[in-house]
């Protein structure tokens, strides 16, 4: 691969004037872009906001006594409901698995398409986009906004500014309000919230999210991405020279310069230096300077430039999703090669598939009853007055079903072991039945005895639990301690 400088060479900049230790923020006035990526972003915004605001209102029938909200993080009841899936605290590993899947998924798309997360799906991007849209509605597009900010304060300016902030705060409140719907019964909390009867935490989180939405999307915007968010650093490290990033094809654009209609395009680049790509950029950078940390890869500069290319009659795609290798190859007159199948993309894909199938398998095969047997460590065994050796155990039965169950407990082909359950009458020859409350955990104390002669040191036996109704069988191997030789 020929080594080339990715940043077009420029004359050394003049020595800057002495600057303050702390920089005032440069106000950015992003211009409205039109084009296919802008359309994609409108659609993505609509879908994502719709999902966020509407999901808590979906219902899902689960039977009596269990919440019927489709998606609910029920902290009081220690459950997480996601449509047909119900996650117990004991199964928090599913949530961990989900996080890992999300992380690797992000790695995968980043290695393929660069920072598409930042560009289209990040909440910061989506809400900022929405807020800029509102701003535009009140104050007009870029030129008008700049003029308005420069204009002296007057009724018109005040009305526009106040109106904008009111709508911003309203959106922020709806955002914070929707957040708490995920943690409570949505209809109930919506009713009690406004009459002051919701739990304190609901007000706290609604207030917090209202404030952060307003502050982050309204006033901080690109500064969040540039200074606060660690993700651009991570994501930038994950993209490589083969990832499709928003790229200025300097091989085609340079040398740039104004172009008059009818002039020849011979010996010059396609960029007419109109700065449209700079004006639409929500983070206020010039993509022609090469890849930059600030760039959120929103592709709006592509739309802007494509529009220009159409008017000047050149092919679109001067700024486009492209890879560093392709640009470098074209710069030296080679045919660009796109490699989406690479070691790392394959690895991420395989990892994702493996974890996803593991989780799916676990979810599909999990029973409604979970059995845990814990052997007493102290004392490891006791000798009864009859000379028998006895061990104690704690049995934990988790019943995830909506109805009460009964489990028959026994010891598999008992080698002289006798089983007793504290608090339950045992009749010889009759099965021992343990009731297990619905949606709960029941503990039983088991006492297992064996004649001393049948024992030396550690032995094992199988505890068998059979669901009387469904016939579901759980076996649990556990150990039995006796005095050694």
């Amino acid at each position, binding site marked *: 691969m020929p080594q080339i400088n990715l*940043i077009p060479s420029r004359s*050394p*900049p*003049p*020595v*800057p004037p*002495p*600057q*303050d*230790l*702390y*920089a*005032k*923020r440069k106000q950015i006035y992003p211009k409205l872009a039109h084009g296919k990526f802008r359309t994609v972003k409108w659609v993505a915004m609509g879908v994502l906001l719709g999902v966020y605001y509407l999901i808590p209102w979906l219902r899902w029938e689960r039977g009596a006594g269990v919440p019927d909200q489709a998606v609910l993080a029920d902290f009081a009841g220690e459950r997480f409901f996601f449509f047909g899936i119900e996650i117990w605290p004991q199964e928090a590993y599913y949530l961990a698995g989900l996080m890992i899947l999300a992380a690797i998924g992000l790695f995968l798309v980043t290695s393929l398409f660069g920072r598409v997360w930042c560009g289209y799906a990040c909440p910061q991007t989506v809400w900022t986009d929405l807020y800029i849209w509102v701003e535009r509605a009140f104050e007009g597009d870029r030129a008008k906004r700049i003029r308005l900010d420069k204009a002296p304060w007057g009724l018109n300016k005040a009305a526009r500014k106040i109106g904008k902030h009111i709508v911003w705060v309203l959106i922020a409140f709806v955002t914070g309000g929707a957040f708490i719907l995920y943690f409570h019964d949505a209809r109930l909390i919506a009713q009690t919230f406004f009459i002051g009867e919701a739990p304190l935490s609901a007000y706290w989180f609604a207030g917090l999210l209202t404030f952060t939405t307003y502050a982050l999307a309204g006033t*901080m915007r690109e*500064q969040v991405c540039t*200074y606060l968010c660690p993700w651009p650093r991570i994501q930038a490290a994950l993209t490589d020279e083969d990832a499709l990033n928003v790229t200025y094809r300097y091989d085609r654009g340079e040398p740039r310069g104004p172009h008059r209609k009818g002039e020849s395009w011979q010996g010059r680049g396609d960029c007419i230096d109109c700065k449209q790509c700079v004006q639409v950029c929500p983070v206020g950078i010039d993509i022609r300077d090469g890849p930059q940390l600030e760039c959120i890869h929103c592709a709006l500069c592509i739309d802007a430039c494509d529009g220009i290319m159409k008017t000047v009659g050149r092919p679109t795609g001067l700024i486009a999703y492209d890879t560093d290798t392709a640009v470098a190859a074209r710069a030296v007159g080679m045919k660009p090669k796109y490699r989406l199948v690479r070691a790392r993309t394959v690895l991420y894909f395989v990892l994702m598939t493996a974890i996803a199938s593991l989780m799916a398998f676990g979810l599909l095969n999990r029973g409604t009853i979970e059995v845990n047997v814990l052997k*007493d*460590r*102290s*004392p490891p065994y*006791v*000798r*009864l*007055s*009859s*000379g028998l050796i*006895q061990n*104690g155990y704690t049995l934990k039965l988790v019943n995830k079903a909506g109805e009460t169950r009964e489990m028959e407990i026994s010891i598999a082909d008992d080698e002289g072991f006798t089983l007793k359950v*504290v*608090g339950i009458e045992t009749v010889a020859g009759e099965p021992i039945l343990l*009731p297990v*409350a619905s949606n709960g955990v*029941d*503990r039983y*104390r088991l*006492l297992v005895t064996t004649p001393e002669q049948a024992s030396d040191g550690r032995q094992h036996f199988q505890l068998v639990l059979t669901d009387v109704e469904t016939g579901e069988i759980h076996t649990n191997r556990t150990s039995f301690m006796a005095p050694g030789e």
Partner: protein
Amino acid sequence: MSDHNKDIDQPTGVETTGHEWDGIKELNNPLPRWWLYIWYATIAFSIVYMVIMPAIPALPGLGTNTPGIGGHSDRMNVAAEIDDLRTGRAGTGSMLVDASLEEIETDRSLQQFAMAAGESAFGDNCATCHGAGGRGAKGYPTLADDVWLWSGTLDGIEYTLRHGIRHDPDPETRFSAMPAFGRDRLLTRAEIDDVVSHVMTLSGRGDDDNDAAGRGEDIFAAQCASCHGPNGEGDKTIGAPDLTDQDWLFGGEYDEVYNSVYNARNAHMPAWGERLDDATIKALSVYVHSLGGGE
């Protein structure tokens, strides 16, 4: 900083700090101003915090730390939390008090509550002597087996817990006294030898044909049988140990039994009724009963 030798980074036109690592120079980009404001805000916050909350430790003349005007203290927080917990548990706690022990052990939810409460109370109060899980030690009965000096029924355990063993201040305490046959000169050393030889045979560990064991039988009948029963089977109503089983609280070796007869062993357990509330006593009874040998 002097202006004359500023180092300017050529590609960006930004002044550097003059720091350089492996040929990489640090640009002196200014921080955003709002960052500075947040820093000011944290300073303001810390001052307010210092005034309201306990903050500055070890000031001369000020015992511990500045108290702060907010009236905050960990001690109060803990007290408030304990109060909350008490009220939270009061419902189930009073149900424990009202229910009989048998009811507690057969009612699933009461039993689970009692077991949990009993387990923690046991760890706090009883495990010191009786060991974790009631494993016992020499002189401290194992509670997980089925050998009981007094009684291993729910009510018996509760009574022992409430009133203790040989706990003088409690008039209803369980009390039994074995005479110190040697120390108080009730028997001679030779007689004690004989009777111990006999006792050893009761649990099948002595030699029946032994002369001493034969002589001891009569002594046993005269001195010991009134409490331990003619065959040494013990008597739970008066706390007399069963001498025929394999369980020896103070050890079943010849020397250990000899020592018990010579000096007498009278262990002591405090009356927990004086220290623990009703609900805890009941929870403990159920817990101990469930350990393994409850009758």
